[in-house]
């Protein structure tokens, strides 16, 4: 009995302590807000936002509600995180493999790249890209076309816009081809287990992916046209591009800085993963007659991924959270728009900061869950 109390009492007190701390902060906030006549509530979310945003993925207008402004700003944050994660993964793998190269030049430039970009504070890098690099770009009227139809200017990167007809049919075709690829893969696996035959999966998948959506153009009435950006004069000396899609320099600078910075960490994870596989594995695989590609695909990568994935997940989470530095260079992300403008216009500091914190927490947990699921999938399955 006495032992039981000794065991439970400290835990009970700790819980009580935590509850009291939270209670104290809540009460403190309430008392102070009461004294200053500030109401607490989320009613503002349905009010008209009445400010505009520079760059949005969905239609947004100042007449929409704060809630919609939140959704649109959140999408901007997700867009930066998504692009950043893609680019930093690709770059990270390339640099990580390059660090293990036997070529002196490749090995050392990769090492220099890693040391350089990971040791400069991220905010400085963002400032560098935005205020130094991208500001040195030409004004719209002086820009030379890249690839004939795109223009990189101080006002952003202007690319042709895609104008689809019957886009939904194309999307259905794409989905159908993806589903059939999954079926064929399962079939191929069974075939190999039963009869030991191997199908050229890569070619079959590629063919399906190209042919089925391609057919939708020929037979499904899907058309795709491009609207090319055209120089437009705003006044005697200022120009912009009309038509097409303008990617704001704020987005470009942010994605550049985030992916270059995070790729160094991903590169180190990749290097560690590959180096973590003992030489014996490779030699054993070679001795049973696997080709070089098969060794990499069937022996090295499955084992290396197990080492690479968990620390890389951390880097993805970091990148997502670091994207909030967007506020420093006017990219309309969640922090700038919602925890900035919306907070200023409504004065609902506690509510808005609370929502923003919860949002970042949810995004991070979602990414972590996704990566954990993937990690589980590639884990050693003991039979």
């Amino acid at each position, binding site marked *: 009995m006495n032992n039981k109390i000794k065991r439970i009492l*400290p835990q009970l*007190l700790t819980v*009580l*302590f935590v509850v*009291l701390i939270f*209670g*104290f902060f809540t*009460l*403190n906030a*309430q*008392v*102070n*807000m*009461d*004294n*200053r*006549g*500030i109401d607490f509530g989320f009613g503002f979310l349905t009010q008209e936002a*009445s*400010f*505009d*945003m*520079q760059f949005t993925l969905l239609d947004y207008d*100042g007449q929409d509600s704060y809630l919609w402004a939140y959704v649109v700003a959140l999408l901007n944050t997700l867009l930066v995180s998504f692009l950043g994660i893609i680019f930093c993964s690709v770059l990270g793998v390339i640099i990580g493999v390059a660090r293990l190269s036997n070529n002196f030049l490749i090995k050392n430039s990769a090492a220099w790249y890693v040391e350089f970009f990971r040791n400069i504070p991220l905010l400085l890098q963002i400032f560098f890209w935005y*205020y130094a690099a991208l*500001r040195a770009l030409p*004004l719209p009227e002086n820009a030379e076309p890249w690839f004939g139809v795109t223009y990189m200017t*101080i*006002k952003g990167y202007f690319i042709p816009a895609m104008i689809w007809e019957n886009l939904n049919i194309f999307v259905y075709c794409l989905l159908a081809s993806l589903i059939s690829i999954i079926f064929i893969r399962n079939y191929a696996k069974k075939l190999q287990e039963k009869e030991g035959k191997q199908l050229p999966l890569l070619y079959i998948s590629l063919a399906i992916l190209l042919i089925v959506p391609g057919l939708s153009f020929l037979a499904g009435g899907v058309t795709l046209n491009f609207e090319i950006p055209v120089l*437009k004069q*705003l*006044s*005697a*000396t*200022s120009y*912009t591009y*009309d038509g097409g899609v*303008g990617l*704001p*320099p*704020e987005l470009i600078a942010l994605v550049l800085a985030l992916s270059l910075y995070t790729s160094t960490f991903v590169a180190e994870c990749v290097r560690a993963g590959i180096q973590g596989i003992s030489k014996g594995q490779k030699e054993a695989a070679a001795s049973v007659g696997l080709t070089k590609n098969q060794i990499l695909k069937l022996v090295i990568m499955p084992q290396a991924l197990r080492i690479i994935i968990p620390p890389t997940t951390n880097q993805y989470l970091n990148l997502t959270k670091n994207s909030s530095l967007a*506020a*420093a*260079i*006017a990219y*309309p992300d969640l922090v*700038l728009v919602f925890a*900035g*403008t919306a*907070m*200023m*216009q*409504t*004065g609902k*500091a506690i509510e808005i900061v609370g929502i923003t914190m919860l949002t970042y927490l949810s995004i991070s947990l979602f990414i972590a869950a996704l990566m954990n699921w993937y990690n589980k999938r590639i884990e050693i399955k003991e039979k």
Partner: protein
Amino acid sequence: MTPIVHALLLLIQKHFLNYLLTNKLKNKRKNMFKVIKRMTSFVAMVAMLFAFTTETMAAKKSKTLKNTQKKGFVRCGVSQGLPGFSNADASGNWTGIDVDLCRAVAAAVLGDANKVKFTPLSAKERFTALTSGEIDILSRNTTWTLSRDADIGLTFVGVNFYDGQGFMVRKSSGITSTSQFKNGISACTNIGTTTELNMRDFFNSRGISYEPVAFEKADEVVAAYDSGRCDTYTTDKSGLAAQRTKMKNPDEHMVLPETISKEPLGPVVRQGDSVWEDIVRWSLNVMIEAEEYGITSSNADSMKTNDNPAIKRLVGAEGELGAAFGLDNDWSLRIIKQVGNYGESYKRNIADTGILPDRGPNQLWTKGGILYVPPAR
């Protein structure tokens, strides 16, 4: 009554926490003794609290005023650098008409206009800094609007500059009026300001599509516009005039004649301390009224013997004006002597620096402007 109940709850909570924290460490017998001791002290404190509240109610002293006098300086929130309004020089000395208002309050309540601690704030941070108690006066070219006044725990005490929003463009662009704006124009501005909302109203009502580029700091906005990222820069006209002086080539830019909004700028205090609110309001009013009666920093002392009772009241030679705030009778004299009247402040900070030599609406009502303050009596 509610504040007392809240305070009591807080006290109980604090005591209980203390009790829990120390409880684990001590043995039982000592604890009993401690509990009794604590309970008596608790009762004593509650009794004191009641006595204390009734006493302060009667003295009508404001908490902010008391804290300010205890600290020995006025905590004032200003901009991060807007010439003419609040700007720090290389050695960290703040000047500007917004700065002068804080100095006036310091002169009134502490006797020394230099006893001010300035906190530079971005547009986004300013209201939170004030409501959370980090500063006691927000004097940062802030527009007085209904929602700000009524909604977020703030009280505007007056207007020290009548302004309106305008646009700046490059002279070379050939634009001389906002009617020449075309679809696709990009406009740089600050986030968290009325400017952002006015801009939308303006472009929307004219059916012009535009690209808003909103930065957190004014310097970033100026840099972006200056480098060609934006075609126009929009904010309060006084701000445009002031920021123009910071550009690489000020002569290459011009402010368009149109004014698209009303921007009455003024000092703000926290809601709930009416005595402090009155002190700040009347510090500003005294500066304006002193100009009206021709009292300046140099002639203030000699005005004590003036025949006009209104002047005598302002320099503390007649009446008991300071008593209402719990201040002595020379409070207004100190403001005029140490900071000067509104006209002196305007001339020193805005006219002589070449920002806006013409006072426009910020002229006294007796001289064709709209500066009109209630009488100090």
